[in-house]
C-alpha cells in the first residue's frame, strides 16, 4: 500500500501475507493485503473473482491454503473464527429469524457472556446509532432491505470487533439507496475509527465508502 498519501508511520491494521485462498478445485493468490488502522479500504473486482472468498478467509470461515492473516501485527492464521474478533457484514443481512431485532444485535454480546439486560441496553444504543431507534422488539421479517442491512451492521459492531469486513452489503439494494446507505455507513464507521475492508464490484460505491480503493487483480502483483 502507501501508494496513496497517508498519515506518517501508519499503524498496520488487517493484513494478508502471500495468502492463497480457494479449495481443491479453485485457487487464487498468493495475495497481499494491507490496511491502515481506522481506515476503510475498498477492494474492487468483478463478480466471481474471489473477493468473497478472500473476506471469508480473512474472517476464518474458510481455511487459508497457505500464507498468513495478520491483525495489528499478530498472526491470526490458526485462530478459529470466533476468537479472531473480526466482524463481518454479508451480501444478505442473514438476520436470525427466530430472534427479534434487538436479540439479533445482542447475539454477539451474549456469546461474550454479557448478561441479557446489559446486552439489550447496548443493542438499543447500537440501533440508535444506525438510525433505527425503537426497533428492538420488531420481527426481522418486518424490515425493509436497507433497514435489515443496518441491523446487520449494528449486530456486527456490537461485540466491538477489532476489524470489520463488508462483503458487498448493499448489492441487493437499488442504486439510489445503495449510494446513500454507503455514505451513511462510511460515516458511522469513521465515527468509531474501525478498520474495515469493503469489497464490491461497483466503483461508485467503493468511492462513496472507502479511504483507499484497491483493485483485486493488483493484490497478486506484489
Amino acid at each position: 500500500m502507501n501508494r496513496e498519501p497517508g498519515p506518517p508511520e501508519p499503524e498496520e491494521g488487517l493484513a494478508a501475507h502471500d495468502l492463497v485462498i480457494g479449495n481443491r478445485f479453485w485457487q487464487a493468490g498468493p495475495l497481499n493485503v494491507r490496511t491502515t488502522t481506522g481506515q476503510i479500504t475498498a477492494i474492487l473486482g468483478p463478480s466471481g473473482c474471489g473477493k468473497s472468498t478472500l473476506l471469508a478467509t480473512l474472517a476464518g470461515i474458510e481455511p487459508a491454503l497457505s500464507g498468513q492473516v495478520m491483525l495489528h501485527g499478530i498472526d491470526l492464521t490458526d485462530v478459529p473464527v470466533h476468537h479472531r474478533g473480526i466482524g463481518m457484514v454479508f451480501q444478505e443481512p442473514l438476520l436470525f429469524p427466530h430472534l427479534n431485532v434487538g436479540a439479533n444485535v445482542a447475539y454477539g454480546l451474549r456469546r461474550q457472556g454479557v448478561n441479557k439486560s446489559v446486552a439489550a441496553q447496548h443493542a438499543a444504543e447500537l440501533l440508535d446509532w444506525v438510525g433505527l431507534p425503537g426497533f428492538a422488539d420488531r420481527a426481522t421479517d418486518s424490515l425493509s432491505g436497507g433497514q435489515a442491512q443496518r441491523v446487520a451492521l449494528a449486530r456486527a459492531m456490537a461485540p466491538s470487533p477489532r476489524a470489520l469486513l463488508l462483503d458487498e452489503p448493499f448489492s441487493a439494494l437499488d442504486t439510489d439507496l445503495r449510494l446513500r446507505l454507503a455514505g451513511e455507513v462510511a460515516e458511522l464507521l469513521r465515527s468509531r475509527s474501525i478498520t474495515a475492508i469493503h469489497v464490491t464490484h461497483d466503483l461508485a460505491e467503493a468511492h462513496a465508502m472507502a479511504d483507499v480503493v484497491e483493485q483485486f487483480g493488483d493484490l497478486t502483483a506484489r
Partner: protein
Amino acid sequence: MTVLPRWMRVLWIAPAGFIVAFVAVPLWQIAANALHDDALQTLLSGSTWHVAALAAAQALLSTVLAMAVGLPLAAVTCYRFPGRALTRALLTIPFVMPTVVVALALRSMLGGALPTGIVAVVIAHAWINVAVVVRVVGSQWARMDLGYLHAARCLGASRLQGFRTITVPFLRPAIASAATVVFIFCFTSLGIVLLLGDQHTKTLEEQILRQTSVLLDLPAASALALAQLLVVSVALILGARAISTTTYRPTTAALRPLPASTGGRVALFSCAGLGAIGVLAPVISLVIASVSSAHGMTWQWWATLNSVDAGTTRIGSPIAALGISIQYALITGVLASIIGVIAAISLLGPRIGRWIAGVSILPLGISAATLGLGLLLAYARPPIDLRGTGLLVPLAHSLVAVPLVVAVVIPAVRSLDGRRLGVARSLGAAPTRAFVTAYGPTLAVVMVAAGGLAAAVSLGEFGAASFLARPGTPTVPLQIVRLLGKPGEQPLAAAAALSVILAALTLTLVLLVDRLGRRVGA
C-alpha cells in the same frame, strides 16, 4: 399466500375426501357397530391408561435414542461424498421392512443372545426409525443457509454455540416433525413389542389385538383404539405447535463439500460407515440364513422359491407373491403420491387447506386392526364392494404411506420460490399456466420421488393388510409371516430368502427415488 390458481384452491377437497372416505367412515363404522356402555368402562379404566403410560414412556425413550443416533447421520448425509446415496438408501431399509423381518434379522444375527424387554424394544425401535430422522431432518439440514452459521461464528459463537443457537432453531420444525412421527410409530408398535417385549413394554395396539383376536370383544377393542387415537392426537397437536414455529426460509438443497480437516473427514466417514454396518449386518445374517442348512451351504432354498411346496401353501409359491406385491406397490405409489402431493400443495392455499396437511398424518395413529376391520365394514360388502377390484390392499397401504409422503413433500413445497411464479405471471401467463411453468417441473419430480417412497412402504407393509380380508394371493410380507408360522428348515430359509429379495427391491427403489430427489435440488 395466493400463489395457487383459483381452481387449485379447492384441490384440498381431494385429500380431505380421501381421509373422510377411508379413515373417518371406517372409524365411524367400527364405533357404530361396537361402542356400548361397557366400552366406555374400558376407555376410562385405570389399566388402559396404565398401558398407555407404559407405551408413552417406551415411545419417548425410543424417540430419544432414534434422535441421538439419527441426528449425526442426518448431518453426515448433508455432505457430498462417494457412497452417500447408498448410505442414505441403506438406512431406509429397516424402516420399510416388515417388523417381523426386522425381528427375524435381529434373531438370525444374535440367536439366543437376543435380549427381551424394554432395552431390546427401544433399540429395535430406534434402529427402525433412524431412517425417519435422517430423511426428515437431513433434507431440512441440507437446505440450511450456512451463511447464518458463518454470521454467528463471526459474532463470537463457538462451533457448539453455533449449533445450539442457530442450527437447532433452524432444524426445530424438522426435528419436531420427525420426533412426532417416530413417537407415534413406537407408541402404536405391535410386531416389535410382541417379539421382543415383556410385561413392561405393553402397547395399546397389543391390547387391541388381544381384545380383537382372542377375546373377540370388539367394543373393548374399539375403546382401546379410541384411547390410542386420543394420545396420538395430543402428540400430533404438540408436534404441530413445534413445527409451526418455523420462520427460517430454507434455500434450495445443496450438498456440502467434505470438511477440510482430516479429523472432520474421519468423523464423517466413521459415522456413515457405522450407520451402514448397523443396517447391513442383520441383512447379511439373513443372506447367510437363506443359504445354510443342516448339511452346510446350499442353494436349494433359493432354487425352490418358485415351487408351491416351498413350505408355504399351495395358494402360490413364495416368488409368486413378488408379482402381487409389485402390483400393489405400483398402485399405492400412484395413489399415495397424488393424494400426498395435493395435501402438501394445500399448504399454499386457503387456511382450511393448511389443516389438511396436518390431518393427513392421522392415519399413522390408527391401529392396523382398526383400519383393516373398518375398511372391511365400509367397503367389502354391498352397497360398496371393492373386494373384486383388488383395491382394498393398495387403499390400506396408501393410508399408511400418505402421512410419510406429506412429511417428505412439505419441505419441497415450502421451498418453492415465489419469485419464479411472479416472473411467469409478469410474462403474461394465465394463473394455471404460470403455476405449471414455475412449479410444475419441481412438483413432478417430487411426486415421482414421493410415489417411490410410498411404493417402498407398500412393499413392506404388513399390519393393515393382514387384517384385511383380501383375495388369496398374499403379498411378500404376508408370505414371509406364513412361512415363519411353519416348522422345519425350509420355511425359515425361504422366509429369509424372500426377506433378502424384499430388502434388495426396497434398496433399488429408494436409490431411484433419491436420484430423482437430487434432481429437484439441482
